């Protein structure tokens, strides 16, 4: 967030107004949805299903307003720090994009290829995205993780994980 480029402050300010907008839109969505709830035939008690959503939606709208005012006056959210985080420089969207791609490929492939393979692809893709360039070593670790976790959780703990094309082999 602390882009060295001039005008960085203003840019963050504007994007944080986006957060306020997002909260406000969600709040309105929740309220509208609650008001559109049809009359219930089996409803019990004086409080219907819409009452609490309206309160929560209003909370979101009000908070959105206060947040917008805070940002307007120069308040800024504090980006979260951490052991491995360096908050200088802007976000590295390329890494995030490859991670998301690896994540989505697992979600799309898990049913057909099975967890041992789709999980291995996920691990390898994430390691690649995060800068590991030991392609062969990563692939070996990924396959061991995929197959190993399948054996551990399916045979050891009775969890259900798709086996996919490896059926009969594992």
């Amino acid at each position: 967030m602390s882009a060295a480029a001039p005008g960085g402050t203003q840019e963050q300010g504007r994007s944080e107004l986006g957060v306020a907008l997002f909260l406000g839109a969600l709040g309105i969505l929740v309220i509208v949805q609650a008001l559109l709830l049809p009359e219930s035939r089996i409803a019990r008690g004086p409080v219907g299903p819409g009452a609490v959503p309206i309160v929560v939606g209003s909370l979101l709208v009000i908070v959105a307003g206060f947040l917008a005012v805070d940002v307007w006056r120069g308040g800024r959210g504090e980006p979260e720090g951490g052991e491995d985080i360096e908050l200088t420089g802007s976000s590295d969207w390329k890494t995030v994009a490859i991670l998301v791609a690896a994540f989505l490929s697992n979600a799309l492939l898990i049913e057909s290829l099975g967890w041992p393979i789709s999980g291995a692809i996920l691990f390898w893709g994430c390691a690649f995205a995060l800068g590991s360039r030991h392609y062969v070593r990563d692939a070996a670790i990924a396959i061991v993780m995929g197959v190993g976790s399948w054996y551990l959780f399916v045979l050891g703990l009775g969890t259900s994980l798709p086996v996919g094309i490896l059926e009969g082999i594992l």
Partner: protein
Amino acid sequence: MDALTDLIGGFGTALTPTNVGFALLGVLLGTAIGVLPGIGPAMTIALLLPLTRGVEVTSALIMFAGIYYGGMYGGSTTSILLNTPGESASVVTAIEGNQMAKAGRAAQALATAAIGSFVAGTIATLLLALLAPTVAKLAIEVSPADTFALMLLAFIAVTSVLGSSRVRGLASLGLGLMIGLIGIDFTSGQQRLTFGIPELAEGINVIVVAVGLFAVGEALWTAAHLRRKPVEVIAVGTPRMSREDWQRSWKPWLRGTAIGFPFGAVPAGGAEIPTFLSYVTEKKLSKHPEEFGKGAIEGVAGPEATNNASAAGGLVPLLTLGIPTTATAAIMLAAITSYGIEPGPRLFETEPVLVWGLIASLFIGNTALLLLNLPLAPVWARLLRIPRSYLYAGILFFSSLGAYAANASTFDLFLLLIIGGLGFMMRRYGLPMLPAIIGVILGPFAEEELRQALQISNGALSGLVDPMSVVIYVILALILLYPVIRRFLPRRAVVPVLAEAAHEIEEAHHHHGLTSAVSVERHSGDDPRNPGRSTSSRNPGNVDADGGGDGG
């Protein structure tokens, strides 16, 4: 002394070989993940929940409690050896502990943290055992209206953390409450916020929410700002303490316990405040105040004891009222419910074996932590060197595995990514995680209590008001309006220790901004920007401006 008899019975449950094994496993796992950056006890328990369906409920909860305690301990190891706290409760440890480590006293810092955690954990668990049954007995009399008020208080208390932005806390709470609303409303059978998507009818699984916010969100956020150069881990031998270290540590341990336990039991502003209070107290009482900031052992001993005592204190509202005050406690509440057990004041009556077994296992876990962690410290230090590409790839790998296993549904994986994206945004704009997860988990319970209260009163809002709830609402109003009230108070009326603690918290935030800004000198051209108006608006540019002196 009924509690003691029950406790002895609890040891009968906890000391079976299986349960001791689960306690040890939990403690080891908890310490490992507490040491590792990027994952914490809350998400580990969430991940293990679907994977331990086959395990008996008492054993599973004993393991989860071990993870809870172990995670606290692991966090302090990281902050002593790395000077970058993973969780807010270890901020103080990072200040003094890392200074000690740099001065070659890492072994002593780790030892005082471990032994202090043991002392505080044991005393606090004993207090928990003595206090909780009484609280539960009183709480059975509490009406739904009062329970609802207490839950509101919990919402506001986790939202209004001293020294952080109130608006952003409330925003996070609102998001959590909204997620908690999704699904079929059980009293009317209506679908709320499901938009006709059948997968949403049963609501979003708590596991998906917790793993998405804590694990996927954290991994994505870290990936976007990954520190590219290897971290410097301070080498450490086996922890040990000299006679002088013992003399300087034992009083801070006891004082830390006294500060931490009540703060954990009464949700009053997060884990940060009691540790800072302890730090300030030790600084005041120390014979060596000049050493503070340069590695005073009291500054590690006190806050670490506080930290552990407040973890045990946090179990009081969880077990007696079903109200969690930390993220880990919230997930444990979800775990208890997922086994079909109803949390609340009757837990001690309906599940005595479970509750007392759990409390007894805390003593075992605490002792195990001490026995394991003193010799294992070098191993934990080595764990910190794990390549970050593998660490975060592993986190995403296990997140996907756990979220999928919860319902065997691909839809949950897409949902996980969306919630991960939400977690990313929240980290980017400083929305705290705790109110969101408390909102998701406690929100539906609060709605149930509200509806019950209003059903009793036939819909009259006066049904929400009785002597006890009025007191709670007044406290609520005071917390919410504190910024306004403070202006009308004479300066002297503000408790000096509290004010000093608030000051220290702000200083620490600056301090950590400083280290992260200094670590890449090339970027020192960052233009110093206006500090902003609210206390929360620390930005690294502003910290750059106050100079290069590291290690304040």
